[in-house]
């Protein structure tokens, strides 16, 4: 068998990315130096190891041979390698449940893919060192806008194949080139990302300095920014955002909304094309979905008498501001696939919970850091359903699906159908496998809603589900086989299915 893929180029490029990624360990090292220096050695060692491994892999081949096929392999491989490297500190530190290699890999993959599902039983800076917790946050921030996009922005040798690489990694169908040079586009996206991150750190720190949120420290502000902007959802607090005041909760909502918006729009805003940004049909749809779901859930929370006094939260039912706040927070958090919780929504009434399950499949906008199916796909699907209804009555009608007046190519529409169908196949298949695995292991019991939402939450890179995997629970009790399966789901979900699945086809490897 002769391989038609220049895998050496892919491996070499992945090595380069890994080499540069080692720089990221400076952040936990710095945190370590500022605090108790518990895990300083762990990070110094991992940094050295990563740099060495990267350099060695880089020598396998030459990155010049990168084509379409090699791009898929490179992206898929990079994310796997990064997840493995990211797991090393958890194992070396040896604290808590994440010291187990499978758990460490799960946590690392969950971080880089911005899923936010955790296998940490004891989430606090007391049980784990601050630098370890900060590394956990940082993996999300790095993964959010995309490691490969970052690499394209920084590495000049990636500029030619950059479009393919970004296509394979960036969320949503198609890459919009904002500038003639792909590296500039990647830099523009990262610049917007960094800009919003700085704004959030400042705002949260400011709140922390006032009476409004006395428990928001500088560490907390940075840690939460690292997990809001990538729509990640890891919090160094076991109670997630419930641990903070109403002011912090309100402050985080707009940042989650921004994180779920196509970053291209911010680029247009920056260039003064605000009309175009506001008229964007996906953005309008996204805003409409968020607003209507929030309205529905607010009413459900307001009228639900069972919810008199939630633990740590106070009275929600019958109170307008808390109903709206928790509804908006949770809806935005789940739709954008951030996965933060402002209260334990596992105790919500069934209709409100199902609204969240529904929201788990929506996802943010294309070109955002959000996961799941994404708004643009749903918009196209809704429009093509309307088209199908019309052509049923008028069989000879030719009717293109339009987005903001612009006709869509039929291959793009077909791609969207296929993606969505595959998404549901993977979701149902994954849930079935999880169920089989749960039945195989004695003494592990899980209710259906927990099983189903665990699969949806990992595939969609959302984070928490309902039941045992609810916002105040975690994934640690799953059998190790299930955890590995979910590692795979997170990986596939983050790269939007095709780049990973294509690696499994014969056609890809042979001519």
């Amino acid at each position, binding site marked *: 068998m002769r391989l038609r893929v220049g895998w050496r180029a892919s491996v070499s490029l992945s090595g380069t990315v890994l080499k540069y990624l080692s720089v990221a360990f400076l952040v936990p090292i710095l945190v370590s130096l500022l605090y108790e220096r518990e895990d300083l050695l762990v990070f110094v060692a991992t940094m050295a190891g990563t740099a060495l491994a990267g350099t060695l892999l880089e020598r396998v081949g030459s990155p010049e041979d990168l084509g379409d096929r090699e791009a898929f392999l490179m992206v898929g491989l990079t994310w796997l390698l990064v997840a493995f490297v990211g797991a090393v500190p958890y194992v070396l530190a040896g604290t808590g449940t994440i010291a187990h290699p499978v758990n460490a890999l799960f946590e690392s993959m969950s971080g880089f893919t911005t899923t936010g599902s955790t296998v940490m039983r004891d989430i606090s800076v007391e049980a784990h060192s601050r630098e370890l917790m900060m590394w956990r946050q940082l993996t999300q921030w790095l993964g959010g806008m995309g490691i490969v996009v970052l690499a394209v922005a920084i590495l000049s040798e990636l500029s030619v194949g950059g479009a393919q690489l970004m296509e394979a990694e960036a969320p949503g169908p198609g890459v919009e080139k904002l500038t003639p040079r792909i590296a500039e586009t990647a830099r523009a996206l990262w610049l917007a990302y960094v800009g919003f991150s700085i704004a959030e750190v400042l705002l949260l720190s400011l709140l922390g300095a006032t009476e409004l949120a006395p428990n928001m420290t500088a560490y907390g502000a940075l840690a939460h920014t690292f997990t809001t902007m990538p729509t990640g959802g890891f919090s160094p607090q076991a109670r997630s955002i419930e641990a903070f005041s109403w002011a912090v909760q309100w402050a985080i909502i707009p940042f989650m909304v921004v994180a779920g918006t196509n970053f291209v729009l911010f680029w247009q805003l920056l260039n003064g094309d605000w009309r175009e940004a506001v008229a964007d049909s996906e953005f309008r749809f996204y805003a409409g979905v968020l607003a209507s779901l929030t309205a529905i859930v607010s009413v459900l929370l307001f009228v639900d008498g069972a919810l008199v006094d939630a633990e740590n939260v106070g009275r929600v039912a019958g109170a307008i501001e808390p109903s709206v706040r928790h509804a908006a927070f949770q809806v935005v958090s789940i739709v954008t696939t951030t996965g933060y919780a402002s209260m334990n929504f596992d105790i919500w009434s069934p209709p409100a919970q199902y609204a969240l399950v529904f929201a788990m499949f929506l996802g943010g906008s294309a070109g955002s850091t959000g996961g799941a199916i994404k708004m643009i796909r749903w918009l196209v699907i809704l429009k093509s359903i309307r088209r199908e209804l019309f052509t049923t009555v*008028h069989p*000879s*009608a*030719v*009717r*293109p699906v*339009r987005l903001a*007046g612009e*006709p869509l190519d039929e291959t793009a529409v077909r791609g969207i159908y296929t993606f969505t169908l595959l998404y549901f196949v993977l979701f149902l298949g994954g849930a079935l496998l999880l169920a089989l695995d749960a039945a195989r292991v004695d003494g592990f019991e899980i209710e259906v809603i927990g099983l189903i939402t665990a699969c949806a939450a990992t595939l969609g890179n959302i984070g928490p589900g309902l039941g045992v995997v609810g916002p105040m629970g975690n994934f640690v009790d799953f059998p190790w086989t299930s955890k590995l399966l979910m590692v795979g789901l997170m990986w596939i979900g983050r790269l939007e299915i095709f780049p990973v699945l294509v690696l499994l086809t014969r056609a890809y490897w042979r001519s």
Partner: protein
Amino acid sequence: MRVIVIGAGEVGRSIAANLADSNEVVVIERDSEIVEELTYSLDVLSIAGDGTSLEILEEAGVEDADIVIASTDNDETNLVACGTAKTVSDAFTIARVKKTNLLDTWRRTKGAFGVDFMVGSDLLTAHAIVRIAGLPGAHDADVFAGGAVRMAEFEIAAESPIAGETIREADRFDSLTFAAIFREGEVTIPRGDTRIRAEDRLVVIGSPESVQEFATELYPAEARDGTDEVVIVGGSEIGFQTAKLFEDHGLKPRLVEQDHDRARELAEELPKTTVMESDATDAEFLSREHVDEADLLVATLESDQKNLLVSLLAERLGVDRSVAIVESPDYVDLFEAVGVDVAINPREETAEEITRFTREGEAENVAMLESDLAEVVEFEVDGDSLLVGRSIQEAMAELPECVVVGAITRDGAHITPRGDTRVEAGDHVVVFLATEVLDDVLDKI
């Protein structure tokens, strides 16, 4: 004036014929047989050669020419010919194009390609279709004085309420003038006792409301429904432009195109049009899509025969009105004789537009009727016009018979001309006149 016409196809020929009487016309044509034939049939100088060649243009005396008209069937040739002429002369250049994108480019920067005036023949035809579509029963329609005056030509059906009436009896519409009657190929200027017969073609000039009102009285059934349901058959450039204009008028037309790729292309370009991919001569398709309920069917297929077939099929199914594009001018009458309501020849429209433009200076707007039998001309009256200072009745006595003052606008307001109306300098006058007396009359008024 010295006018050079490049290309002696139907358009070029028709322009040359229109201008030959009062101008020095040189025609450049590649086909030497046509050149030979033209020499004998028209009072023009004809030269055999390529109109894009500077040598030939110089031979035609381009340096002294006032107007160069490029009217071949090829867009690019026309543009290059104009550009070439501009290199050696200051002549006013006119180019005929089919591609609307060229027209768009030219409109953005007037003078682009060395063209001073560009005529988009397909767009022009589409405009004519839409104009006529708005008036039930009309065969031709045009607007003057910035929209304040409308001219239309109607065919009188046997069951029409005014058939058999005299002009005096029929004259019950405010601000409407019966300008002329075409009967068996002859122009008649109606007098009070002229009797209107079935199959007459009546030319009326008046305010848009009165012309509309007149159409409504003549064709009450069609006018009651209005023209909301439009079906266009054939996705040619004319069909496309027509659909676009209907869209601009707030209608949602249906367009039938047989070719798969072209249908898709049209559907992408026309968001408010329902594009159907089908053979429009398929009766089952027509009935499934309820084409019979359409108020108007426009046939813009590439072949005259198919346009005729589709129009007749539609008429048979029960479509209120049919308009068909006819490429060969000889068929225009035939089409209308066998039952197509209106037949439009794009080349005629183009020739008309170009001729109308070359008359600028003498007149502000010109419409040609019945393939050049008569014209409706708009002009601003100046101090030394024959019309100033006397009543229309007095003025008419000094003019040839085939002249009618159809409408007058003073400061944008419409005045219905009657025998005792006095015209003032600065008024805009819309006059109907037979082509044979045109130059004579225009000199006097």
